[in-house]
């Protein structure tokens, strides 16, 4: 122990005595370790840390699953919730929730708040105690008892300034009073909703349990497995239940409809796991390059330190002791790099979170905690051993007698140089692999943002309103107020046009349904036609600048009492009426054998509009006039403006206020922003991988520069002789550049092969692009060769300035 401390002391001193080397090595390692620590903090928060609920490994979610509809996973319906939660053999308890926006009035400016309606077992099931008051009781999920609310910590702070007196106060939500009975702690996070302001009991009416509501799938389900029940067993049992349910409810469920049980922890990381692991792989590669670079620096130092080592051996140092001393030095260096790396990570994690722009799971707790620090320490120690081992071994192999005889001049250059070249080749190869990965993501991203959304997104403001049941109790008044809103917006100066829709594109909501198409017989074992359903005002499609391909737009005459009409998108025509004029054709939500079949006639065809994402698979789209189908309680509006859409917000508010002064606007956004947000996860992955690849390339080129500089120093005599024999500087320049180029080309060749094998794991992250896209591979290879030439140029230039006389004399 005492000698270890001595080694440690001498190692620190030796590093301090060589500040240039130490600073470069520490910074190089800090970049590698810092990047790994930052990404690991995300991996830790998303994949490793347990969910913040009681016994989280017993929690599962159940989804409706449609294999033939692109593996669609839908929440459950009210009858479904009843059926599945009744399985006491599988679930100790179960709950569903329904997130919605409600209007909060009576306390200043009306505002929309995010309310999560939960069934009785919700809070007991999650096992998180409230910070204040109580949570909701199981018997409060009944009409008449349900006017109680539990606030989220954030909402309590924001609205009540953390005042404990808020308990017992009344809240007016959608014109109904609720009593505040509790506040949840700051660490509590609803699993399915990023931002819940308050929780209230969900109450279902008897009609909600009707069998025709089985496909009304809007309730995320959480269950706590009964003791002894595994996820696999629950899956097997619920699959059997799904098979049994298919037969009596053929109208609701397709022949392959199924139930999917997923551990809540897996659900939390679904969709981000592979991306995060790829990023972790990428930063590990960056760290490897950093290690190779520091090993290279160490090897250069080894040559100069051969005498020191030989003296130590001559003084009696055993090989083990010597190795320990050299590795101690490496580990000290790595720990210093790790410490600076953690500082970088502390700064980088918030930046990373900002960059992720809400694309991480809601339950993720990302930060530099004790586990992340432990990881950083382990990585630092491992790194120290990794980059220290080769130079230490090299040094142990030094010919001691020669070292002492030569008075400390470098020895063993040849094998050291071979090793250093090998390291440079491998760094170039790794950097190329990362660059190819980043290049693929960049090209993929360019293709995504280049997708025509099917409408003009510029100068488009979006917002939504919600009509409370208490104030607008029936369809007639709702349709009236929505039409008045539509008219008021369209009459506002500065607004080119405005239209309402049940689902704003890129707004995060969607509603789909199955239907039947006139003249189309569903083949056996094929699901019924299925797609997006939209209720819209007549001005919506023109406001969006959707292209009318055939027929007409909706008009004010398309209302209750007039013939049922719809407008379909090109995708539907392409699939079901490919060779006929679709105008006048009909669809229905009934089955063909239904005696009271209600047909809806197609009056127009518009181009397909992207909805969930520019890269999302196309679903067919059907539009219905809102005035003909009853007023839904909430509607999104899109407003086309002449100038900056957000600058029109005041005018828009005025228009809404002129119809209902208590109606708050929610989800105000520009369409450009919504689209940009929809590409957030791609941008996140692209920027991170791009950044790491750039870092890798920089480190690799620094490594190449270092080796070429070293080579020039080693070859000074030879270059001097060449110059003395009449070589001109161009020839010397070419000689060195060629050497650098050879190393780079070897690295590029190995890197191309590696990338060819490795980029396949990114297949799911790419859009309309092969994982072995030749253009990307070629462009990156050329880029890296160009960078390598630049990195070799400075040493080559130095080589041309070798003074032959000096070089020969110094030898």
């Amino acid at each position, binding site marked *: 122990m005492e000698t270890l401390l001595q080694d440690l002391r*001498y190692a620190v001193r030796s590093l301090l005595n060589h500040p240039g080397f130490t600073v470069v090595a520490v910074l190089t390692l800090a970049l590698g370790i810092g990047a790994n620590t930052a990404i690991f903090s995300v991996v830790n928060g998303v994949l490793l840390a347990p969910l913040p609920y009681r016994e989280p490994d017993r929690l599962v979610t159940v989804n409706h699953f449609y294999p033939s509809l692109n593996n669609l996973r839908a929440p459950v319906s009210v009858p479904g919730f009843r059926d599945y939660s009744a399985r006491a053999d599988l679930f100790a308890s179960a709950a569903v929730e329904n997130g919605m926006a409600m209007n909060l009035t009576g306390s200043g400016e009306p505002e929309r708040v995010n309310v999560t309606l939960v069934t009785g077992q919700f809070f007991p099931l999650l096992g998180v105690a409230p910070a204040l008051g109580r949570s909701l009781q199981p018997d409060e999920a009944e009409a008449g008892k349900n006017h109680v609310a539990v606030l989220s910590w954030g909402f309590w702070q924001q609205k009540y300034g953390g005042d404990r007196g808020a308990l017992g106060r009344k809240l007016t939500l959608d014109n109904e009073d609720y009593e505040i009975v509790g506040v949840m702690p700051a660490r509590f996070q609803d699993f399915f909703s990023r931002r819940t302001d308050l929780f209230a009991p969900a109450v279902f009416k008897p009609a909600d349990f009707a069998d025709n509501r089985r496909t009304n799938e809007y309730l995320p389900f959480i269950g706590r497995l009964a003791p002894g029940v595994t996820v696999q067993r629950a899956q097997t049992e619920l699959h059997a239940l799904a098979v049994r349910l298919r037969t009596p409810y053929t109208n609701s469920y397709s022949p392959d409809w199924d139930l999917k049980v997923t551990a809540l922890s897996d659900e939390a990381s679904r969709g981000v796991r592979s991306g995060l692991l790829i990023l972790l792989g990428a930063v590990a590669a960056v760290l490897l390059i950093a290690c190779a670079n520091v090993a290279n620096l160490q090897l250069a130092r080894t040559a100069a330190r051969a005498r020191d080592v*030989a003296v130590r051996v001559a*003084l*009696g140092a*055993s090989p083990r002791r010597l190795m320990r001393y050299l590795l101690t030095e490496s580990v000290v260096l790595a720990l210093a790099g790790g410490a600076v790396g953690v500082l970088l990570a502390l700064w980088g994690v918030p930046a990373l979170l900002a960059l992720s722009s809400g694309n991480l799971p809601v339950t993720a707790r990302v930060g530099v905690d004790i586990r992340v620090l432990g990881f950083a320490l382990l990585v630092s120690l491992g790194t120290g051993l990794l980059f220290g081992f080769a130079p230490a071994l090299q040094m142990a192999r030094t010919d001691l*007698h020669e070292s002492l005889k030569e008075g400390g001049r470098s020895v063993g250059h040849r094998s050291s140089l071979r090793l250093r070249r090998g390291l440079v080749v491998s760094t170039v190869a790794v950097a190329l692999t990362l660059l190819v990965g980043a290049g693929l993501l960049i090209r993929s991203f360019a293709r995504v943002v280049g997708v025509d959304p099917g409408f003009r997104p510029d100068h488009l403001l979006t917002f939504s309103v919600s009509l409370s049941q208490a104030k607008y109790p029936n369809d007639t008044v709702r349709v009236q107020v929505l039409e008045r809103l539509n008219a008021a917006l369209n009459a506002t100066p500065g607004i080119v046009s405005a239209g309402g829709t049940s689902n704003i594109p890129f707004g995060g909501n969607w509603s789909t349904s199955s239907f039947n198409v006139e003249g189309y017989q569903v083949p056996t074992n094929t699901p019924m036609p299925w797609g997006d359903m939209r209720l819209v005002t007549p001005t919506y499609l023109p406001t969006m600048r959707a292209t009318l391909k055939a027929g007409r737009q909706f008009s004010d005459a398309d209302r209750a009492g007039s013939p049922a009409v719809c407008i379909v998108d090109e995708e539907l025509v392409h699939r079901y009426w490919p060779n006929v004029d679709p105008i006048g054709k009909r669809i229905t939500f009934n089955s063909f054998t239904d005696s009271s079949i209600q047909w809806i006639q197609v009056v127009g065809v518009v181009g397909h509009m992207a909805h969930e994402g520019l890269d999302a698979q196309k679903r067919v789209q059907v539009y219905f006039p809102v005035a003909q189908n009853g007023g839904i309680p909430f509607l999104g509006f899109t407003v086309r403006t002449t100038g900056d859409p957000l600058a029109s917000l005041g005018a828009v508010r005025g228009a809404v206020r002129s119809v209902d002064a208590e109606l708050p606007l929610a989800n105000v956004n520009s369409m450009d922003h919504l689209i940009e947000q929809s590409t957030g996860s791609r941008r996140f992955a692209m920027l991170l991988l791009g950044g790491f690849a750039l870092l890798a390339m920089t480190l690799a080129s620094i490594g190449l520069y270092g080796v070429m500089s070293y080579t020039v120093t080693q070859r000074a005599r030879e270059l001097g002789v060449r110059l003395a024999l009449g070589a001109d500087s161009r020839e010397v320049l070419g000689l060195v550049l060629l050497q650098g180029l050879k190393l780079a080309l070897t690295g590029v060749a190995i890197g191309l092969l590696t990338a060819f094998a490795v980029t396949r794991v990114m297949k799911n992250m790419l859009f309309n692009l092969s994982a072995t896209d030749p253009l990307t591979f070629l462009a990156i290879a050329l880029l890296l060769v160009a960078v390598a030439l630049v990195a070799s140029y400075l040493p080559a230039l130095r080589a041309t300035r070798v003074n032959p006389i000096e070089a020969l004399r110094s030898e």
Partner: protein
Amino acid sequence: MIALRSLEKSYPQGGSKVFVLRQITLDIGPGEFVTIMGPSGAGKSTLLAILGMLDGEWTGEYQLFTHVIHKLKPRDRVALHKQYVGFVFQQYHLLDDLTVAENLDIPLSYRDIKKAERQAIVADTLDRFGMVAKKDLYPRQLSGGQQQLVAVARSVIHKPQILLADEPTGNLHSEQGREIMELFKQLNAAGTTIIQVTHSETNATYGNRIVQLKDGWIAR
């Protein structure tokens, strides 16, 4: 004490060998002060390295006390080296990052001597060699003679029975060289066997026997 029989050292070159030492047969008794002389390239330093067990690539027989060196594994040779041998080099070879006291401490720490004991030995040695005032200085802060003095002190601090010196005064001016040689004489008088390599006839006079090497052979 030291017995070499038909010891040879060579390097491969092309398809043949280049010999550095040929058929070296030599006996050195305890308490001797032997001087190895000869022209450059004669193999003097190589012979010294082999005697000190820094070089293990040779053929022939080497016996040190009762130890049959040529049959020993490298690890065992290291142990013997630690036990018996001290080295002094022409270039001093002090460790630049360590102070005078720390340079003296290093051989002791490699021999797993406890810290308190090491401190006492170092303090005693500093006193004996008159370097107490310089104990916290780094080698670069010392003159060549002072550095060699530290090197000699370091080589004998663990009380080796054999001191090997390769041109110990080669980098010193004559007065400093004389002081070092006087020191060697004292160490020899105290029982340390000394084998030195030198070009200096004057230095050779401090010893009691001269071994001449020429082209790798012992000149008869």
